Structure formats: C-alpha cells, structure tokens
C-alpha cells in the first residue's frame, strides 16, 4: 500500500495523460466515423470502396501492430525527409502522444463507421421526406434531423467503442507515452513491486471504465427523455 501512495502523484499524472489521449482520440473517432458512414451510404462507388477498404484494414490488423506501423513508419519517413535537408539529423518522429492517438482513433473509428452507418439506416424515411417536403436544405436535413436522430440510435454501440478506446490507450506505453502503464513500469524498476504496481494500473482502468459506463447510461437517459412520460 505504501508503494502506491509513494507513486500516487506519478499515477495521477499518468492518468491525466491517458484521459487526454482518450479525448483527443475520441474527437478523431467521431470524425472518422461520420466521414466513413457518409461515404459508405453515398452513391459514389469510389467513396464506398475507400471506406470499406479502410474498415477492413483497420479492423483486421492488430491495434498494436497498427500503432507500430503509424509510429515507426512516420518516424522513418520524417527522418528521411529531414535528412534530405540536413544530413546531420539522426532521428525525427511525430510526438508519440499524437501518433498513438491517431493510430487508436483509426481502429475505433473503423468500428464507429459501421455503428454510425447502421444508425443512419435506422432513421425513419418518412421523417426525412417530411423534412424535405417542408423545404429544408440538404444540410439542414443532415444537421437538424439525421444527426440528432442517428446519435440516439448509435449510443449503445458507441458506448462499447468508448470502452475499447479507453483500453487501447494502454498500448501507447510501448512507444513511450507516459501513461499509467508507463508509470508502473518506472515504479517497478525502483521498488521491485510489479504485482502491486500493475494491479494499481488495472484498478485505475477499471475505475475509468466504470465512469464511462455510468456516463453513457446518463447520456442515454437524456437522449430518450422525451419518452420518459410514456414509460
């Protein structure tokens, strides 16, 4: 127990890194998901092909391998470009935090395209027709009708993606992002209590997962507040 208290500041800092990474990735996931779902539902065969290919690739490759590809791939490319300017440069990379956030967002984003696509398909066609009949523009239909309706239908699936996203943030310690797992690795080299340290990490993740589950319950309740009276 004393070991955990000794390292509590570092764990707190690590947790903050994880949480930041989570939210940065989350924003990217929403962008990927919406872009991908729109492309999959579009009439353009090219857009559908690209979106489907993206989904197959990002869901079929292990998250960990994708992370390595993004981080080391970008590092080699950047180093080569930098060397063509200045041969003295030995190594250049994208900050691991951003490479990690990007790689994780690709994986979860690929899953989100399917969830969003299903949710867009779940919208009552009559509503869209009614909105068009009222003279709303395409953008208005999307912004005021499709998006709010879709959001509600996508919530349960999206909640699961958020849990996966949180758990994937553990991976970035491998490329040197100083999250809680990284903290535990450092602590272990000093106090030789790996079991205590890694178990602490597990319980921090468990607590964060619980926060996500509870938050999603509240959001779901809010999304269906108009049906509260009927129930």
């Amino acid at each position, binding site marked *: 127990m004393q070991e955990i208290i000794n390292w509590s500041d570092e764990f707190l800092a690590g947790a903050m890194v994880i949480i930041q990474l989570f939210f940065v990735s989350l924003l990217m996931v929403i962008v990927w998901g919406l872009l991908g779902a729109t492309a999959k539902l579009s009439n353009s065969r090219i857009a559908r092909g690209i979106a489907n290919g993206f989904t197959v*690739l990002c869901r079929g490759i292990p998250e*960990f391998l*994708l992370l*390595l590809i993004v981080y080391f791939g970008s590092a*080699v490319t950047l180093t080569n470009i930098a060397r063509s300017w200045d041969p003295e440069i030995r190594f250049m990379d994208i900050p691991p935090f951003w490479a990690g956030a990007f790689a994780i967002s690709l994986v979860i984003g690929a899953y989100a395209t399917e969830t969003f696509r299903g949710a867009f398909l779940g919208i009552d066609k009559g509503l869209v027709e009614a909105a068009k009949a009222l003279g709303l523009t395409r953008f208005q239909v999307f912004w005021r009708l499709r998006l709010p309706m879709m959001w509600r239908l996508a919530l349960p699936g999206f909640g699961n993606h958020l849990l996966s996203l949180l758990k994937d943030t553990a991976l970035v310690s491998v490329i040197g992002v100083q999250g809680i*797992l990284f903290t535990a690795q450092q602590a272990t080299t000093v106090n030789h209590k790996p*079991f205590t*340290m890694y178990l602490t990490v597990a319980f921090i*993740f468990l607590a964060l997962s619980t926060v996500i589950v509870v938050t999603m319950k509240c959001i779901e309740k809010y999304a269906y507040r108009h049906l509260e009276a009927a129930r």
Partner: protein
Amino acid sequence: MTFDGSLIIDSLPRLMDGLWITLRLYVLALTCGTTLAIALVLMRISSKKYLSWPVMGYIYFFRGTPILVQLFIIYYGLPQLEFIRTGPLWTFFREPFFCAWFALTLNVAAYTAEIFRGGILGVNSGLVEASKALGMTYTQTFRKVTAPIAFKLSLPAYSNEMISVLKATALASTVTIFDVTGVARKIVAETFAPYEIFLSAAIIYLVLAWVIQNGVRHLERRISRYAN
C-alpha cells in the same frame, strides 16, 4: 523513400516461424478460453448468488481492464508473490508463452461467457416452457433445447471475439515472445525498414482474419440450414 521488396522475401521464413507461434497461441487460448467460458456462464446464470457473483466480478475485471495490463500483471507481476516464485507453479509462470496463453485464456473466457449469456437470454422462453411441459428436467432442457439455440444465437458475436483474440495475440510480443509481431519488431530493429516488414506482418494477420471470418460464415450457414 524506397520500398525494398527483396527484404520482404528474405524475412518471410522468419515471419513464418512467428506465424507458427501465433497460431499455437491463438488456438490454445481460444479453445481453453471457450471451454472455461461454458463453465463460467453456467455459474453466471445460476440462481445461487455464491456462484453467480464471483463470476460477475471476474467478468467485470477482465472486460474492464486492457489485456496488456493483465498480461503484465501475470508475467511481470506474479513473481513478486512469494508462493508463486518458490512454489511448483513457478515452472509455468516463468515461461512467457505460458503467461501469454494464460492471460489470453482468462480474457477470452470473460468475453465469451458474456456472449453466451446473451445467447441464452435470447432463447425463446416458450421453448423452455414447452420442454418443461413435456416433462424434461432442467438439465435435459438446457442440453437439448437452450444450449444449441443459444450457441446459434451467439455465433455472430463469437466470431467477432475470435477476430479480437487473433489481434490480441500480437500483444504477446511485449513479453519477449517471437510471434508474427515479435519477429517483425525484431527485424525492424535490425533493418529499420518498418513499412516493408510491418506491412508484411499486417497482411499475414489480414489473411488469418479472413480465413476465420469465412470459416465462421460457413459454420453459420450449416447450423442454420433448417431455418428459412
């Protein structure tokens, strides 16, 4: 930026060695995990709280924490405990392959138990009532009615889990196992050619995932040949 094709061909034999380890880990973890899941789900749906509550806690822990952390607890963490290091279990827990298998198995069991539970809950209660009316015992009903239908209902979710486990085996490379990802990391460290090697590894995983997905689709079609 050049793409060196001969490097891929040169490293293929080593990647194939890695593939063998990945496959072994995958098959062992999936079969053992699924078997354990059957036992867990039976406890989970039991009306006796001393059976269902521990399983609920187990599932909650393993689904709420990253596999990488679980793996680190087992491989790096357990040796901290005196009875592991000095006891007979140490022969197993000092082997990275055993630890990776152990972590993946426990993980698969937790997720699969929850999938099977969903399947069991999805079985039409009319069927269960009908079997009771026919005088079948609880065990008979479960074996001949609930379980087969639940299995069929669980298949789509289970096939997703099968793919997830395949992807999770890549984490074994963090505990010094030379599976496909482990071999790829080693070659990249030697040659510093991440695109060629990591993309070859990625293609291996994609092919495996494709084979699994098609296999399950085949099985699904066979199982539901009486429906529709």
